[in-house]
């Protein structure tokens, strides 16, 4: 709620959101295939209703929550955020969602918890990419608890005021705007509070290329490509690259989370 103005200030920074068409036709969701257009082509088959999220680990009120129960009483806000993929492309997305912190308060995080782990649904019969095992499934991600509690961190349920498109991670997904897009895990079915750093899919696959933190950082290159600049989706074939911003432009709000940490080391 403290950052309810984030949408407004985004507009003030001249952030023009991408169109819904662009946002929902250029996706990475490997459960549906590795092509950027695969999710839009196949995600239709994903069953998102009913949807339950298992909340377990170090919480006072663990259990299987129906999505509506988890969201009840919380205010869905619009947040216009930059979205920077680790592949060096970016968009601007007007998300609708609730702060993850509010959901965490609802389930009661115990004082011993230090991390939050997330898991994506696996519906093999509805997800043609799962059998191909391009990466291991289920997809898992995680945040440090203070990152998870940061007011910029959202659980998003929509875009442009409409229910989340399936290819974008319906019915509910994480949005952490200062980290590379793969941290913002889609179609969440499990949230686990833990005291140890949880495994994350891309880190497990290639530790050197994908760190646990994966904060957007133009000074730390991906081993196979530069992260210093990015291409905004939607500019057409002659669009120019633009410089990537430290913490994707959210440094004034999140840099303090990493005080005293070597970000070359903790990439």
């Amino acid at each position, binding site marked *: 709620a403290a950052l309810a103005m984030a949408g407004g200030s985004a507009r003030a920074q001249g952030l023009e959101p*991408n169109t819904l*068409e*662009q946002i929902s*036709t*250029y996706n990475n969701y*490997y459960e549906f295939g*590795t092509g*950027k*257009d695969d999710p839009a082509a196949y995600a239709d088959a994903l069953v998102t209703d009913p949807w339950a999220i298992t909340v377990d680990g170090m919480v006072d009120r663990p259990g299987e929550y129906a999505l509506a129960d988890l969201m009840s009483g919380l205010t869905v806000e619009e947040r216009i955020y930059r979205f920077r993929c680790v*592949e060096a*492309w970016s968009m601007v997305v007007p998300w609708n969602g609730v702060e993850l912190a509010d959901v965490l308060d609802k389930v009661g995080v115990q004082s011993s918890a230090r991390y939050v782990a997330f898991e994506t649904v696996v519906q093999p019969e509805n997800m043609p990419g799962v059998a*191909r*095992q*391009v*990466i291991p499934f289920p997809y898992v991600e995680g945040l440090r608890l203070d990152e998870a509690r940061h007011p910029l961190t959202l659980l998003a349920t929509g875009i442009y005021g409409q229910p989340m498109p399936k290819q974008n991670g319906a019915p509910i997904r994480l949005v952490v705007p200062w980290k590379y897009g793969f941290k913002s895990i889609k179609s969440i079915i499990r949230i686990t509070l833990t005291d140890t750093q949880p495994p994350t899919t*891309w880190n497990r*696959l290639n530790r050197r290329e994908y760190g646990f933190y994966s904060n957007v950082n133009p000074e730390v*290159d991906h081993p*196979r*490509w*530069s992260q210093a*600049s990015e*291409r905004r*989706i*939607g500019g*057409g*074939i*002659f*669009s*120019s*690259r633009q410089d990537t911003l430290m913490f994707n432009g959210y440094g004034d709000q999140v840099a303090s989370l990493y005080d005293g940490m070597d970000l070359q080391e903790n990439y």
Partner: protein
Amino acid sequence: MDIAQRLNRATRQVPAWPVYLIGAAWAGWLFWLGVSGQLGPEPINALERRYGLLALQVLVAVLAVTPLRVWTGISLIKYRRALGVTAFGFVLAHFLVWAVLDLQSLARIGGEIVKRPYITIGFGAFLMLIPLAITSNNASIRKLGGAAWRRLHKLTYPAVLLGAIHFVWLVKGYPMEPFLYLGAVIFLLALRLVPKRKPAARSAPQATATAR
């Protein structure tokens, strides 16, 4: 008359020059799709990948010509030059999209070639193909002499192998497609090490020597 002979007789009627036309038209058509927004919201990357993949596909076809003739008697040798030059055209288009539309600065291009091994080998493969494209004409064969020309054009082998590794190396995760291409290239190169049968259609003995 067996299938190989029938096919060889049929291809005698089909000239090689349309290969160039089809290749150029295909490249142009893809570019137009990109310009007109039909390659999705990020046309630069899409075009880069489409040209690169086409190049690899045609190069695999080029590598298949000789084993096909040796093991089945089907001779497509008259199309090989056109296929090779067309493949080079796609490689060039792939490189230009990457350099001009994607990276947009000489400093970035140089930096990426030096720093990123998969780009280094891709660029290396491109450099190897340049002399082959330039000498893909009868005048060059005469000037260099057949033996030297053939030796030079063996550069195709490392170039295509590097191209396939370039593809495997650039993807995220472990998708099957690039490994299939790499497997095909290795298979086609390895076939050249297998002791040869006599060509099925025992036609022209000297062809065996020219078409390795």
